[in-house]
């Protein structure tokens, strides 16, 4: 077993639920590296939503809430506010985060509460068998868009930024080093950090939308399509069609973090509640 797996994984919960070749395994691997390098394991409080990606934290020996579909951010909000020293990381998928959970997502970002939200985006509802998601590309064929998706997808990074998130980054599973850096920056950033990871789904999205269930080919596609946020700025809009803009999209340090604001807002004469419950 990998030494990091030995150190951090809940052995009894193995094997992983992910399909062979799933990008979420890469995200788990990189997250463990970030935890190791930052030496933050005792401070972690992890929350997973529903879907393949929501399972990710359940394999760690940390304190974990595996919650309801779409509701990871409000659970994480309560958890964070009872002790702002916690490093609360939310693992979610595109359907969980901006489909059913869209409202919670924008309000979490609006509050600028110090959560690190890692959203694995495979452009499809993977665990339920490949249905259309709010991130499925236009014309994408899924089990519930058999004639091609007629809806426009979200740009979730733009959504996060517009809603008030203060750290926004996007990478793919073909960018492990960059993703590691982003996760570390996101956890260090005091505010709502949103890290989108384009994650290959060979079983559903690959097979039905990309025409291949070979994870290697899917990673090659990520590399081919990726364009840095810096280069994208000087690229004409029509040339960005079908491209994945990667990099640190937004980083704002001036805006105050919510749990700090809340704790500072307590009246000076307020009795200390350390003794409860």
């Amino acid at each position, binding site marked *: 077993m990998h030494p990091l797996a030995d150190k951090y994984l*809940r052995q*009894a*919960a193995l094997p992983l639920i992910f399909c062979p070749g799933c990008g979420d395994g890469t995200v788990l691997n990189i997250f463990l590296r970030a935890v190791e390098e930052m030496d933050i394991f*005792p*401070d*972690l*409080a992890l*929350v997973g939503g529903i879907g393949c990606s929501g399972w990710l934290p*359940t394999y760690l*020996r*940390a*304190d*974990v*809430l*595996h*919650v*309801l579909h779409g*509701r990871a*951010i*409000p*659970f*994480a*909000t*309560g*958890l*964070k*506010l*009872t*002790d702002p*020293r*916690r490093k609360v990381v939310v693992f979610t998928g595109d359907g969980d985060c901006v489909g059913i959970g869209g*409202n*919670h997502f924008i*309000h979490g970002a609006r509050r600028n509460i110090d959560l690190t939200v890692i959203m694995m985006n495979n452009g499809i509802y993977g665990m339920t068998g490949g249905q259309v998601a709010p991130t499925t590309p236009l014309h994408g064929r899924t089990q519930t868009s058999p004639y091609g998706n007629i809806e426009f997808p979200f740009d979730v990074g733009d959504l996060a930024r517009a809603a008030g998130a203060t750290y926004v980054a996007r990478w793919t599973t073909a960018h492990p080093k960059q993703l590691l850096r982003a996760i570390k920056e996101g956890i260090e950033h005091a505010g709502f950090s949103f890290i989108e990871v384009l994650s290959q789904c060979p079983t559903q999205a690959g097979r039905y939308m990309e025409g291949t269930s070979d994870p290697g080919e899917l990673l090659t596609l990520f590399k081919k399509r990726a364009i840095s946020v810096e280069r994208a700025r000087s690229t004409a809009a029509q040339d960005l069609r079908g491209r994945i803009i990667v990099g640190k999209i937004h980083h704002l340090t001036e805006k105050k973090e919510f749990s700090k604001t*809340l704790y500072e*807002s*307590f*009246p000076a*004469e*307020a*009795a*200390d*509640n350390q003794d*409860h*419950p």
Partner: protein
Amino acid sequence: MVQTLVIHGNEACVRGAMAAGCRFFAGYPITPATEITELMARMLPQVRGVFLQMEDEIASICAALGAAWGGAKACTATSGPGFTLKQEGIGWAAETDTPIVVIDVMRGGPSTGQPTSSSQQDVMQAKYGSHGDYEIIALTPSSVQEAFDLTVKAFNLAEIYRNPVMVLSDEIVGHTREKIRIPEQVEVVRRKKPESSIKDYIPYRPTSQGFLDGMPTFNQGYGILVDGQLHDEWGIRAGHKPDVSAGLVERICRKITGHARELLDVEEYRLDDAEVAVIAYGSPARPSLRATKEARHTGVKAGCLKMRILWPFPETAIDQLCQRVKKIIVPEMNMGKIYREVERVARGRAEVISMPKLGGEMHTPQEIFEKIK
């Protein structure tokens, strides 16, 4: 020093929650429960407690559940439509042995119904609102004093049973102002910490009583997995294991039904020699008691059984009553939901009469008296 106040039932719920150690509240304004949210916003910061107005009812209960594992005694409050939205969180709490108090100040329904009028139409939603098999505890205050006392009790029961506990108040209790007495100190059940060492701690292994070995707070080293999926004793998913998953569902149900005797909370008035009994809960319990007294004045042997805990249903107490009385009257501000429960227990031994009342108004003592005689 005992504090004597003239306040409404919603304020009494807030004061009860504060006295019981509530230090986290997340809510969303809804009539007729709004004053609970507003008063929590005022009072919690005074004790360094967290108040949050969330984006919706679902987020409110989920934040409270997160806070419960973060170490706080947590609460949310709502009315009918919001109570419906909270149901998935209530199921999650039941499934994960999470203590939470949900106050539902009932208004008329269905749908958005009658926001400013009272009802008792959510009593079945309280018990059966979420999907799957699970059990809850529900308390039904009939006065402002009881709104205080039973909210304190709700927090204590949530800690003892590690379960969602409902305070089923109603608009009449919520908005009636009357005198209450608040003792300087109330009995408060503190959260039980695990007895085992971190190394030996098994989060979901029940004792012979069906309880668990204490509830750790996150980030104290226990590394606990709290999973809404059916799980084994370590919290690891076991939906694919029929025995393990069935065992969990049985345990969470029996944790409540198996302690029905301890959870019995009824008040009896002159039932010893009664031939007619009124069984009531919440607001209608008050005209019921009055009607019983009137009936006694006219020589009718009438008595009253008031339920302060509606779920688990006080079957044994009602069963014993059915052996003695000829007639049972069940006044309710709904179409007769608890009437059916009483009839189920009576099994034809006593005549059970439903007294439904809709529209938002409570039964008058006269109306109940007419049925008694």
